């Protein structure tokens, strides 16, 4: 029978299907971090259970860590306790930890791929919804809750109902200045923040196969922002080339065998999906969000929808959202002054993102009223940025390049956007208060974010390149 890529991977990991119940799904890789693991470890202890497969788990500290002076003890007592708890648990249970100051430390979804831990055909989970990022490699990867983290600790399996299948096809070449981030923001704006509910998405078409691995990660990362459980892209030569030579990638004969089996990972031509969408790359421009969910986005030179354009059922949420953002229906955003720019997060803090931003910034100076900070996704990204001299470009332009972590993506550490301020951010969520209480987030690509910092106002990258 014809199968989708998703079915092939999922089905081969089912230990047992409970009649009329969820599947018992075997997990190949489990990433953990300081925020969603402590209760799972203590749950395990309370039940008197051992950790079933410690060698399949990799831990890092990212959500809560400071992005300055990481060599000093963490000053916030609760954050410090959480990070210490992770270290203690990893030691006690024999889990590999890339903690603060380790050369591999970084945002969990950045380090998995860059270390070659993330590989095609795997099932991957983490107590973090953006685990979908790893789908870029043709893996079934999704976020789980802490009880599920505990399930994987105890049995290397979780109970999961199988999601429905959706395919989103985009064909054609992207306009200059339009990035992977714009593609995914465009898709979400078209199908809404809940349009993917209940589905697992496969991204197909030439636009995605033309993308680099890092760009594909940006796309898959935000699958969850349309409500989908995850998103994946069939692996190809680019995928194999990316993995080759990385720390934990197979090598030699093992690699050849792995690649041979990875080549089988694609959707059969006549396989069917429960839902399909088609878009054209030429219709996609630089995007920005104006509201408080990632579906509330538009092409940067458009006007915010007017109330008349909306479904009656949408009006109240829309009005509430715009009032939080202090924006008006029908207003245009181009030219709007912005005081904060954040380049970071598991969506856009890899080396290609930093390079793209550096290209815009090179030889220029940020607007005086803007605070612009860049948080590399990992220690390795940071190191690479220094080796390429990107740090100088940023510093000369008045940007602050800090140390790796989640930072202002969720504002758990001290990196918060002040109340009432606009922030053009390369992260993935514009929820109320996400970047700090009262902060007003506008999601955009690294190019748009960098340009906004230079111009001091929201600007269309197409007018500059």
């Amino acid at each position, binding site marked *: 029978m014809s199968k989708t890529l998703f079915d092939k991977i999922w089905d081969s990991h089912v*230990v*047992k299907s409970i009649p*009329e*119940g*969820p599947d*018992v799904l*075997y997990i190949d890789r489990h990433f953990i971090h300081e*925020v*969603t693991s*402590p*209760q799972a470890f*203590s*749950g395990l202890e309370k039940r008197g*259970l051992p950790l079933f497969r410690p060698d399949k788990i990799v831990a890092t500290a990212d*959500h*809560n860590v400071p992005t300055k002076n990481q060599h000093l003890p963490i000053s916030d007592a609760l*954050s410090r*306790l*959480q990070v210490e*708890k992770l270290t203690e648990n990893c030691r006690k249970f024999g889990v590999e930890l890339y903690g603060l100051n380790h050369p591999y430390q970084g945002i969990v979804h950045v380090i998995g791929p860059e270390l070659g831990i993330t590989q095609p055909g795997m099932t991957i989970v983490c*107590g*973090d*919804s953006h*685990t979908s990022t790893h789908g870029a490699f043709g893996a079934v990867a999704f*976020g*789980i*809750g*802490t*009880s*599920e983290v*505990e*399930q994987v600790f*105890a*049995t*290397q*399996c*979780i*109970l999961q*109902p199988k*999601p429905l299948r959706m395919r989103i096809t985009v064909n054609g070449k992207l306009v200059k200045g339009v990035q992977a981030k714009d593609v995914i923001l465009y898709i979400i704006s078209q199908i809404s*923040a*809940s349009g993917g*509910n*209940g589905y697992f998405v496969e991204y197909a078409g030439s636009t995605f196969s033309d993308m680099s691995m890092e760009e594909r990660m940006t796309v898959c990362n935000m699958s969850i922002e349309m*409500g989908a*459980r995850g998103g994946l892209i069939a692996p190809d030569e680019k995928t194999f080339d990316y993995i080759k030579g990385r720390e934990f990638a197979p090598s030699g004969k093992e690699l050849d065998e792995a690649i041979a089996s990875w080549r089988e990972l694609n959707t059969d031509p006549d396989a069917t999906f429960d839902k399909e969408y088609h878009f054209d790359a030429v219709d996609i421009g630089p995007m920005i969000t104006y509201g408080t*969910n990632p579906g509330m986005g538009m092409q940067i030179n458009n006007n915010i929808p007017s109330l008349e354009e909306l479904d009656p059922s949408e009006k*109240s*949420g829309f009005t509430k959202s715009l009032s939080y953002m202090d924006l008006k229906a029908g207003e245009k955003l181009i030219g709007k002054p912005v005081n904060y720019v954040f380049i970071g997060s598991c969506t856009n803090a890899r080396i290609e993102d930093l390079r793209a931003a550096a290209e815009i910034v090179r030889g220029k100076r940020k607007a005086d009223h803007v605070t612009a900070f860049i948080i590399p996704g990992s220690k390795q990204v940071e190191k690479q940025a220094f080796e390429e001299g990107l740090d100088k470009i940023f510093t000369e332009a008045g940007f602050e390049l800090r140390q790796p972590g989640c930072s202002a993506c*969720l*504002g*758990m550490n001290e990196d918060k956007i002040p*109340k009432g301020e606009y922030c053009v951010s390369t992260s993935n*969520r514009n*929820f*109320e*208060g*996400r970047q700090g*209480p*009262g902060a007003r987030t506008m999601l955009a690509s690294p190019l748009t974010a960098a340009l906004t910092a230079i111009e001091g106002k929201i600007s269309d990258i197409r007018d500059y390149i």
Partner: protein
Amino acid sequence: MEKFSKITSTIVPMQIENVDTDQIIPARFLKATSRDGFGENLFRDWRYDENGNPIKDFVLNDSRYDGLILVAGKNFGCGSSREHAAWAIHDYGFRVVVSSYFADIFKNNSLNNGVLPVQVSEEFLNGFFENPETEVTVDLESQKIYNSATGESELFDINPYKKYCLLNGYDDIDYLVSMKDEIEAFEKNR
């Protein structure tokens, strides 16, 4: 986990759509290493102003409404996978959340913590918002939710396995651990 069977209670009507987990429990309150105490900060930024004073018109501060059942607009629990959202709802005292749609991860998380997500039709949901002082009965055994103000009831869906777990107070880990041999056999045969 505690057993769940039948609940009759007044409701807390929250007519807001797309309630995301950052609103249910903001990230800055995720620093605890135990599961307790999150209820205090449930809907923190909607509930209290920056000086910690209750915001009057938010429904949790409205003395007319109280009970074990939270009723909310469509797409409840979207956003992050933080289970802290389910812990906060449970810790505050809710045992049922009613909405016309739930985000997947939230649904799993709440079922794993003894909070029943009841998905109903839009019309049925509106029946609560139109009669916010109603009394509601949720019966897991018959999968029925009853709105006493309108006299209407609706059947709701729940996975039979999850229903069995809730009724008996079992959780997924108990079940998975009982499968250990099968899991090991699966590993060997790959």
